[in-house]
């Protein structure tokens, strides 16, 4: 059966069953009948050739962004003071925290794909998990910069860590910011381990293919002396399972804790019990949005269309549709809660969000996150590269504005009218925001050229090159 006939939803084949009965055929996870060798060749090719012009251009822009990011932090935040930013009285938090929450949210998709989908035996994850995890780690690395440099005296930020010292400095465990430290560092640690664990056999593949001795040395070190023995594979699988088990609750916990930064405060618009689930879903939503933004160009430039197939993208779009609706529901619930609570402050803040000074930010948020993904009800749209790329960008924009709306509208106009103010981003804030994308893409682009961007070993495990379509999917436990 021709592969192109099978795509998307499973197709019924009346006589193809093992006993001659009907069989539901799925699109194969690797297209065009690539052999195991071809898989290795395809994935390792970008690592073993000179960078292409698009990559060089993209990397140039990313470097520029990263340079802006760094120079804004050094010259403004660290040397001159937080005054260089738009934060003021009463808006104590601004784009630093907006970006922090945004990037942490981005970081959710990777772990969800690798850990949760792993536990749920979603085999399609193998094509995208490596890059999604890479995105997670780089997003957390980007996010982590913001809380560290948004404080007034960044050189003392390590005081937030509980470490024994002669000054009896000990963090205040009542503070959600301290919880953040633990949540995020744990998440980052597990994510890195999990990612690295998956990378070990693939690094060994790259090592084995290496010609230059230095290259061999580096990848040899990275692959931790992987031999490919049965014993090694067995331990490796157990480790992956354990790590995915550890990582799964973290998908929920990190953004829950981040939402506590707001939910445990008394600020109207922040003080809400809905925040933890609302934040987690929003994070998954934005994470998948960013995954799409990254994978669509990557699969094309690195010629990985056979591994990151339209089916993968469609599955991602379905998740976007689902989470987008949950997010939209959460937005509406907030209004209901504000009205139902009878609290004037709460009521005011939500009316003000939708119709007040920052109405534009609110409606950017609402339309990008709740309305735009609705387009994925249509299969054609779900499988259209241009449409999904635009949607993924809009989801990113919408989710950035979600954090902007939550932080800025709540702080600018709270209890005492005489405290009210506005928040306007300064050039430094713009530099920081745009620069953070440069910083993130710099890592991602480097990753594209130095790491196997598709999990070679895992893809092979779900792929049967002899069977054109869907055979692998029929093995209930998968075949390694």
């Amino acid at each position, binding site marked *: 059966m021709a592969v192109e006939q099978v795509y998307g939803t499973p197709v019924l084949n009346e006589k193809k069953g093992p006993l001659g009965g009907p069989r539901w055929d799925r699109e194969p996870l690797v297209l065009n009948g690539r052999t195991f060798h071809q898989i290795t060749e395809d994935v390792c090719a970008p690592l073993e050739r000179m960078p292409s012009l698009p990559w060089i251009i993209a990397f140039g822009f990313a470097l520029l962004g990263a340079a802006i990011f760094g120079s804004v932090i050094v*010259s*403004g935040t660290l*040397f*001159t*003071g*937080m*005054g*260089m930013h*738009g*934060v*003021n*009285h*009463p*808006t*104590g*938090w601004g784009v630093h925290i907006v970006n922090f929450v945004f990037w942490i949210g981005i970081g959710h998709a990777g772990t969800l794909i690798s850990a949760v989908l792993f536990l749920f035996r979603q085999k399609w994850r193998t094509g995208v998990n490596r890059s999604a995890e890479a995105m997670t780690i780089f997003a957390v690395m980007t996010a982590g910069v913001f809380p560290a440099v*948004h*404080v*007034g*005296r*960044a050189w*003392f*930020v390590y*005081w*937030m860590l509980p470490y024994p010292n002669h000054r009896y*400095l*000990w*963090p*205040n465990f*009542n*503070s*959600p*910011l*301290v919880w953040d*430290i633990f949540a995020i560092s744990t998440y980052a640690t597990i994510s890195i381990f999990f990612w690295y664990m998956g990378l070990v056999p693939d690094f060994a593949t790259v090592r084995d293919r290496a010609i230059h001795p230095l290259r061999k040395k580096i990848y040899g070190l990275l692959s931790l002396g992987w031999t490919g023995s049965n014993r090694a594979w067995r331990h490796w699988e157990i480790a992956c399972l354990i790590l995915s088990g550890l990582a799964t609750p973290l998908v929920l916990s990190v953004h829950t804790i981040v939402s506590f*930064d707001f939910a*445990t*405060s*008394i*600020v109207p618009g922040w003080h809400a019990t809905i925040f933890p689930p609302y934040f987690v879903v929003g994070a998954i939503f934005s994470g998948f949005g960013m995954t799409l933004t990254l994978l669509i160009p990557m699969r094309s430039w690195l010629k990985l269309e056979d591994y990151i197939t339209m089916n993968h993208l469609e599955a991602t779009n379905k998740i976007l549709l689902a989470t987008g609706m949950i997010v939209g529901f959460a937005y509406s619930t907030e209004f209901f809660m504000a009205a139902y609570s009878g609290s*004037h402050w709460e009521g*005011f803040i939500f*009316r*003000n969000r939708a*119709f*007040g*000074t920052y109405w534009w930010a609110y409606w950017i948020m609402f339309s990008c996150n709740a309305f735009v993904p609705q387009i994925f009800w249509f299969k054609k749209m779900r499988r259209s590269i241009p449409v999904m790329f635009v949607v993924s960008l809009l989801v990113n924009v919408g989710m950035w504005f979600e954090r902007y709306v939550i932080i800025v509208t709540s*702080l600018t106009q*709270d*209890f*005492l*009218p*005489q*405290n*009210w*103010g*506005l*928040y*306007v981003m300064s050039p430094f804030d713009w530099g920081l925001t745009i620069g953070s994308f440069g910083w993130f893409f710099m890592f991602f682009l480097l990753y594209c050229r130095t790491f196997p961007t598709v999990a070679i070993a895992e893809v092979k495990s779900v792929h049967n090159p002899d069977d054109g379509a869907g055979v692998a999917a029929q093995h209930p436990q998968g075949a390694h």
Partner: protein
Amino acid sequence: MTKNVWLSTEDISSDALDAQGRPISPPPLVDGDLAQANSIQVEFPDGGKQVKMDRRDFMRLSGAATAAAGLTAATGCQVPVETIVPYVNREGETQPGRPNFYATTIHGAPARVRTRAGKPIHIEALLNHPSGTCGTTARQGAAILDLYDPDRATGPAQVKGGKSTASNWQALDKAVVEAVRASGAKTRLLTGPVSGHATQEAIYEFLGGVAGGAAVSSMHVAWQPDGHDNLRQAAQDLYGLDGLPDYRLAEARTIVSFGADFLDNFISPERFSSDWAKSRSVENRGVKMSSTVVFEPRLTMTGANADRRFRVRQGHLLGLAGALAHLIAKQRNASAVILDQLKGYDVNAVATETGVKSEDLTELASRLVEHAGSCVVFGGGVLGSVELDKMALLINHLLGNIGQTVVMDGTLRGARGFRALLELIDELNKGQVETLIIANTNPVYLGAAIGFESALEKVKNVVYIGDRLDETGLKSNWFAPLAHDLECWGDSATEVGMHAIQQPSIRPMNDSRGLLDHLIAWGNLKDANGRVTWTMGGRLHSAVTEAGKAAKAGEAPSPAYYYLQDSWNARFFRQKTASGSKRSFNQALRDGFHFDIGTNTPATNFNAAGVKTLPTGPIALSNAWDVMLASSNAFADGEGVQANNGWLMELADPITHVVWESVAQIGPRTAREMNLMDGDSIMISVGDNRLSLPIVTQPGLADKTVVLYAGLGRTAVGDVGNGVGVNAYSLMTNNGRRAQVGEVVAAEGWTQIPRIGGDDPRDGRGIDIRADLLNNKLRPLCPESSLTDWNTKSTAAAKQGADHGQGKAHGEGHGEHGGGEHHYNHEYGGATYEPHGKNKTFVGGHSGPSHWAGHEYPGYRWAMSIDTNTCTGCNACVIACQSENNISVVGKKGVLSNREMAWLRIDRYYSFDAQLDNPLAEAKHQDWDHLAALPEGALDNPKVHFQPMMCQHCENAGCETVCPFTASMHDDEGINQQVYNRCVGTRYCANNCAYKVRRYNWFEYSFERTNWLTTMVNPEGKNHARYNNAGDLNNRYNPEVTVRTRGVMEKCSFCSQRVQKAKIQARSENRKVRDDGELQTACESACPVNCITFGDVNNAETRISQQVAGVRSYRILEEVGAKPSVFYLTRIWNP
């Protein structure tokens, strides 16, 4: 500068005099009991006594010292390494770690100066001053910053063509003496207000010496732009009085003002405020609380605090006053002359013309008649007219207030206004003046539009005595630097019978002299050896010889001291012996005042003929605009003398909240008609004078009225004030009136208005009035009540209180109930106070259910109450706080970015519920609609609420739980502490503060730490350095309070340094801190109306406990559940 101080440690223990003839100021914390003060052990001796110490003690102490040094370094948050000088050559009475206090006067009004290590650091209230002026003004408090102003002149100079060259005293004195001797009676002395006996005497003696028998009174012109020409003229016409009436508000039942802003800018506002507050006391006086009724075109502080305010045009004031006078005259059976004169003022006609209801006028008239003899009627104040003041005096006369609440004995003189300057200009232009000495006033700036500068060119010799080479200084020939009030001797009398000495608390920091010293020096010419070669004789001479004699014996005070003593002795003490007079003089110095009512008999003879000059009826309103040149207690005051003072420039004007900018205030209705928004420019023309400046829409203003605050637009005042705003006096015309008529048209341009509180930072045109509006029904932030309600409720509460007292006797198990249940739970919030058993738990109002038992306060429990019923919004507390707590100035750009640092701010709300028919529209507006959506006229005459807002020291403080570094924490005395050196600056605490009272150091404001990178990135940093630490400005810092670095959160600490000091003092005497003013926060001490009370609520006897437990007490945002320690007392209106 050789020596800063005079007294020795020994002097403190005796009331002997120091070598300077200056008495010792009593240590203030112990009721003036010197013996007691000296019994206090100084923990680390100052070196005055021999230290006996063995090796072990030495090691122990040096260990402690090292630890202390480490602590200091840490507290300073990265304080840069600085060269320090050991305190070996310590001066006289200074003791490390202990302040000295000096009673003195600042700007003529009594105050007390606190010095540390010989440097004045804080100006506060002179306690126990009998006039009831127990506070300071914002301008007085800010004078500390002026003292250290690096832009002050450093020495005498000769000026030619606007360029100065440094000179010396000998050359200057010689030139001046030659000039005045040559000019004789063609000499004139132009000064600011001069009220002190000795100063006046010195002026007359000097001018007498110059003129040789001519009429010296015409040679001295004392004036100020806020002068009292009108009232003086009115008093002259009606009573033949050469001087000003004085008003006694404390006993008044009804106070009416026709524009006089007596709470802010009229005669003696801080004293009037204090008396006004006394008259409004609801606790002690009950139903006798006074009622204030104000008719005015602009919104003044007085109008904002009035029980009833009528918004009328300036031109209508006379008609209204006349109608009122007419009504009263009829009821009080006035003489035919008066009735005849007033018959044109028909109440109905006036009512129709002005829009004020005739019933209101009739009601007011009968109320005044009812309170005849115990009411006060003010005229038009500084901006009024002779006719208006006359009419007001006439009403006072008709009501029999003269001699009761209005006192006229001629001792209170008051300076003249612009008319005096105009007369002088006339003289100058006619060439009648050869030598003009100008002292402590800046007529070139003030008289810019009325031709003073060109008139000055006709004068041969111009000598300028001023603190800097300002606009007038640059036009003079000789510049004689004037010492600051804190540096030189002087005296003043700003109240009938009250005389005060201005005592220096530091030697002149620059090469300058006081006014008295200048006059003495010019009355006695000395040669290079200091020998007097020519003299005018009299006291001017004896002062110099006495000073010379004393100088031979050692360090001597300036001759002004001897002059002052001599003059006061002759006038007040009349002691026969030198020692006797010295004793009396020293007593006055110690007290800060001397009371001597004198022998003047009060004028009571009403001159009915004076009434005849009054217009026979209301004057019809012209079609022109009213252009009013007003003064604000913020900014630079109306004269611009403090225009280089960053504190005042950044102090929110109580009404507009504008800082760092000149604006024209226009009523919202007029602005809408002209299609103008805040920041749009208008062109104001008065005669040929034009001025273009941005507007703010100011609720409460009369139609077609534009109000400008004067005092800005200086060109030669210094780096801070130069070029800020425009000079409103450039609209002055030759009629000398500050309420002018002119034209206003829209002009090109838009300016962003820097305002304190509730405004956008950088947003374009959307300056938003929403933040000023308060809907007390939706957001009951400013509870209010009427006197009638209060009287019934307070009775009910008293009854409930009695019941509760019985209940308390039952004892334990009470604490679980929380507050409310046993208490009179009134609608304002229902905070209660309940001292409980051994835990002494303080229970706040709506405590609600809680899992948490709360904090325990075993010892003290500090709390504060603020009586909104008397708070006038005068800002004295704001400046006192800034001075006490080393708060930085952030500059105009900082304010535009909403980054002002004031720990204590005065929120000002307009509530307009009375004017609106549709409560739904009101709610809608408060929520999100814009100004355009407000119903027509909603902001015409809003009710104004002032609400001082500082850290509320919550029990369940939002800031405390969220700080990851534990920098914000609660102590066991109820103070919410901010540990600066632990703060890393997440700003989470500020976000989680419902009151948004925490302030963040966005930049390095307090230390000059600039490098090429920060200068490039943030050019504003140089301005911060200028505002806060250029030159000697560092010396103003209160050493008891850490100066914060960038990245650190700060906020009101309840003046914890004062708390600590009082506690240590009390502990050393084995007692508790007393409730008698021993412990006052800076704001409390500065408040002229005594509306702030601070103290221990664990002690049921204290004033604070009683206030907190009272019916009027409430806490703001009670429903948030933070349980603040700051209680507000409900405003009671008595309309």
